[in-house]
């Protein structure tokens, strides 16, 4: 009576180890900094990384995925967004690094999603032996289609955030630029008058001497 739940717990945790772990993170990457994340991946498990720079500088970042034996699985420089899928060759710790080391003054906002393994099935559904009915199959299909929709939505959400942040930036810049320009025009107008007056004034000044 007491041992069965523990057995089940161990079993579930084992299954958990194999089945999906999906993490979505949006984090700040300060200028000339490097941010690394680590994940244990079992052998022959497929994993996928998706990332996108939301704000900052030229919207680019250096990305690297390193395997347990320090072999480089994926490396890209100055990328705005990308996704990469790979199958783990060895069991061990995989390292995902985002680097902003080439940039000295722009800090960035980076979104990242790391998916490991297939999706965890609903409790009780994974282990049933009979053939699935049509209803169950279509439910399954709808589920995967909805997952795809959510993924696309995330992508669009991030693109929208990118565009919006840029528009806000532009708005602010236009504001400052206009103020500066008005000030410049007024200053130039007065300066012109002063200089011209100086040309024709009776007192010898540095302009008439020239």
């Amino acid at each position, binding site marked *: 009576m007491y041992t069965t*739940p*523990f057995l*089940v*717990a161990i079993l*579930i*945790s084992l299954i*958990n*180890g194999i089945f999906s*772990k*999906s*993490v*979505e*993170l*949006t*984090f*700040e990457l300060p200028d000339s900094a490097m941010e*690394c*994340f*680590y*994940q*244990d991946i079992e052998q022959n498990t497929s994993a996928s990384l998706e990332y996108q720079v939301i704000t900052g500088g030229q919207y680019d970042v250096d990305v690297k995925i390193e395997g347990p034996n320090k072999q480089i699985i994926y490396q890209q420089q100055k990328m705005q967004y990308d996704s990469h899928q790979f199958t783990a060759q060895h069991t061990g710790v995989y390292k995902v690094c985002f680097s902003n080391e080439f940039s000295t003054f722009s800090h960035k*906002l980076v979104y990242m999603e*790391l998916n490991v393994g297939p999706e965890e099935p*609903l*409790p*009780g*559904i994974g282990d*049933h032996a009979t053939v699935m009915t049509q*209803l*169950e199959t279509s*439910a*399954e299909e*709808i*589920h995967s289609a*909805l997952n795809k*929709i*959510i993924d696309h*939505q995330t992508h*669009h*959400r991030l693109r*929208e*955030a990118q*565009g*919006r942040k840029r*528009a*806000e930036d*532009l*708005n602010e810049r*236009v*504001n400052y630029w*206009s103020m500066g*320009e008005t000030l410049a*025009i*007024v200053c130039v*107008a007065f300066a*012109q*008058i002063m200089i*011209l*007056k100086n040309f*024709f004034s009776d007192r010898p000044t540095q302009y008439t001497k020239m």
Partner: protein
Amino acid sequence: MMLFNLSTLLSLVLALDVASALYFHIAEGERKCFIEEIPDDTTVIVNYKVELYDPRSGGFMPSSPGIGMHVEVRDPNDRVVLSRVYSSEGMISFTSNNPGEHVICMYSNSTSWFSGSQLRVHLDIQVGEHAVDYANVAQKDKLTELQLRIRQLLDQVHQITKEQSYQRRREERFRQTSESTHQRVLWWSLMQTGVLVGIGYWQMRHLKSFFEAKKLV
């Protein structure tokens, strides 16, 4: 009795789950923030576990009772939703009231003894439909497999709907910003033209009277 067993089972599973999650390293006292852009009425679950670097063995101690984590959650209006010190391992959940960017910040409550050493933080953030524990739901509501699947589909659709209505709002804000920029550029350039013409006219008048006074013309 059975219920108690199941809850221990669940917590055990959860604990094991966190240990296998993504992790990163921070220095003691360093502040680490993550941003979640979510629609309103969405549940976020954060699971974390902190391990302290052990210089003697060169590894990380699996449990460090002396270490606590200060967790702070801010909503899009920069109001504090949650700010508390938790132990080295824990689960935080909150539900958003306002749509937008929620900032989750974590830092250890630094003690001078450990300062300067490294911490390993296991972190797992689940949002919306992902945060639902379906094993629990099935157990509580006594659902069949198909009913459970339908429940999951419904949750997903709700999540998508919420996200979409939020997206509309954001799009509106985006458009407003663009239109305001457009308006500002237009009016500012018109005004600037006016200022230029005005100043030119004033310069002419001023110089003319100046030259006349000096008897140059």
